[in-house]
């Protein structure tokens, strides 16, 4: 596929790795903010190939992971009600709320459906005028515009039985919260390319200047990640801290004006709780006054549900880069993808699940090449 294969080329990856190795003179801690990038890093073993001095800290950029427990509980409550069709992206179904997940609600008779776009949920609402259809609108600046567009359409077409359970979050305030944490170790950021393809890059220069950190916007293929790391390390070694765009094939500095206008119309900035981290000021969106009638929390009167998070889950520290997943006492014992304590163990983009799935191997005992290498044998 164009723009995929050429960004996974092992020879080019090797060249970038060599450049990173020859650039680094001392230890640096970089954070990739986005869960999609975390997934790529672990899946391709990129962290094993970087120099020891380059540490990648996995940030709070998995929308599934940071959705607060109490929002999940609201979703479970709404999805359990008779007459409701609850639509969600697939990976939210396994996220544990208090004692159950959406799969469980479905097995108990709830009408929970996986959709691939919020517009599909709107279609379901039009086909089922006697049912209340709710879409679980979670995610970062990437999933917010289609959700905004869907609510906009619902209002324009006068579809009264559609609503949105909103838990949108924004990247820049999260970066700010991480940098303000007293125990912060992050010295440079890989910013999420898809977020910037919507929002542009205007929000980042101020952050880079205020906290003296390089911020490199990059994509999701192995070469994107490596190029992002290379540029960030180069800046750090030179003592620079500017915003760079390493994802020019998708990101324009001004972002996507149509999407921005839609967000402006439908949403308004609000404080938002992040699972495991707590409330970050101005870090989320809610439906604006003009669209409040489509807010599922109000429609189903679940605004009062509040939930405390389990004490033994340290996902908050993982999401802030304070500990690595396997440094949590519960990792792989009390907490596994089968029995996740926190969302970072649920989503395949969650740092804990990624570690559990791809890195359970003791790397010290990584598989040696077979005694008779296949390359040298006549087989194959």
């Amino acid at each position: 596929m164009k723009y995929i294969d050429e960004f996974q080329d092992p020879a080019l990856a090797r060249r970038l790795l060599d450049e990173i190795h020859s650039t680094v003179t001392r230890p640096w801690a970089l954070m990739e903010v986005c869960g999609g990038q975390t997934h790529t890093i672990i899946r391709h073993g990129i962290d094993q190939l970087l120099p020891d001095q380059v540490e990648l800290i996995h940030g709070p950029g998995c929308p599934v992971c940071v959705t607060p427990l109490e929002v999940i509980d609201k979703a479970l409550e709404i999805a359990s009600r008779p007459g409701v069709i609850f639509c969600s992206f697939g990976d939210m179904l396994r996220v544990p709320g208090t004692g159950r997940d959406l799969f469980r609600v479905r097995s108990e008779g709830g009408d929970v459906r996986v959709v691939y776009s919020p517009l599909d949920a709107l279609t379901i609402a039009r086909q089922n005028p006697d049912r209340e259809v709710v879409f679980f609108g979670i995610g970062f600046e990437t999933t917010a515009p289609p959700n905004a567009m869907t609510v906009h359409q619902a209002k324009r077409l006068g579809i009264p039985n559609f609503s949105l359970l909103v838990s949108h979050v924004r990247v820049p305030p999260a970066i700010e919260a991480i940098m303000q944490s007293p125990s912060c170790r992050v010295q440079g950021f890989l910013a999420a390319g898809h977020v910037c393809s919507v929002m542009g890059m205007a929000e980042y220069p101020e952050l880079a200047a205020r906290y003296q950190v390089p911020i490199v916007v990059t994509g999701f293929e192995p070469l994107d990640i490596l190029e992002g790391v290379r540029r960030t390390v180069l800046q750090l070694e030179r003592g620079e801290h500017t915003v760079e765009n390493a994802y020019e094939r998708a990101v324009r500095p001004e972002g996507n004006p149509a999407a921005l206008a839609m967000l402006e119309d439908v949403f308004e900035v609000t404080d938002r709780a992040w699972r495991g981290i707590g409330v970050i000021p101005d870090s989320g969106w809610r439906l604006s006054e003009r669209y409040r009638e489509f807010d599922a929390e109000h429609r189903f009167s679940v605004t009062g549900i509040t939930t405390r998070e389990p004490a033994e889950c340290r996902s908050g520290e993982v999401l802030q880069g304070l500990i690595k997943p396997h440094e949590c006492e519960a990792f792989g014992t009390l907490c596994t993808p089968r029995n996740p304590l926190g969302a970072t163990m649920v989503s395949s983009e969650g740092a804990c699940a990624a570690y559990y799935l791809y890195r359970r191997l003791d790397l010290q005992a990584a598989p040696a090449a077979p005694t008779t290498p296949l390359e040298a044998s006549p087989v194959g």
Partner: protein
Amino acid sequence: MAETAPARTAPAETAPLDINGWTCPAPLRDHPRVVMGHGGGGALSAELVQHLFLPEFGGPALAQLGDSAALSLGGVRLAFSTDSYVVRPLFFPGGCIGDLAVNGTVNDLAMSGAEPAYLSCGFILEEGVEMSVVSRVARAMGDAARAAGVEVVTGDTKVVESGHGDGVYINTAGIGIIPAGVDLRAQRVVPGDVVIVSGEIGLHGVAIMSVREGLEFGVDVESDCAPLGGLVRSMLAVTPDLHVLRDPTRGGLAAALNEIATASGTGVLVHEARVPVPPAVANACSILGLDPFYVANEGKLVAFVPREHAEAVLDAMRAHPLGRGATVIGEAVEAHPGMVVARTRLGGTRVVDLPLGEQLPRIC
């Protein structure tokens, strides 16, 4: 990296930690009701069988947990297998539920080295389904049975009320004779065995997804649904000493390799760059956030072959129409017993785990 990696934990099935906190002896404490994942061919399915079915009616033959049972009956070695088909939509690019119902069971028999011979066929039809649909399915079953060289010799039909089924469900069971000298079991796998896959992976799963309600993405992929008896016969003709065969259906290549690694207690190392993933499958998976290793196949097999026979077996496979794309993807190793590890294109490694339940598309 300089960090200390997490200590290895044993696979979930055998990890004592999973038993920790089992406060009551009742099975499946996490799931008071059946969830979709219990039918996904992954860890949840395995748990349902291990903790609920086996204690109630498991004997030594069932405890083997193969795709088919190998039995001795009147001095003959028989393979016996059953499978139910609940695919939606009923018709998809490259086949329909009828082909699947024949080939799926034929392939389960073939994986034990048997010559598939006879099938049973149980229909569960939904009230109101169009007769033309049933007729198309039946015709496809007849064509598939003839192509596979098997005969449907007994059957049953039930009808459920409208709204209680997806139009057509089919169960087929099959028997076949296992030739003398053939003993295909995961327990026979030893370090050094060569792992061969018979062709491109992920076609069936992507073909189904491409026409599933709400997805309908344009992709030029047809299901690889096909009977593998002939391919297995040509492999066994080279040497009866193949160690194990699996058809990687639900849960895909990852599930098949994990089953073999767990049952044999050896490690499996896969070279990601050698696994044949066709571009259309790679693209669809990339868009949907799925991993091709976990996507279903219906006309492929994975073979663990002693190294000294690997080349001859590979040649025989490539000479067969259903094995033209056969390729070596890895080997059984002494390291990381019971685990499947992939060496990535870039030279890193990662664990390829057993899928939990259903694969869920990722958000972004």
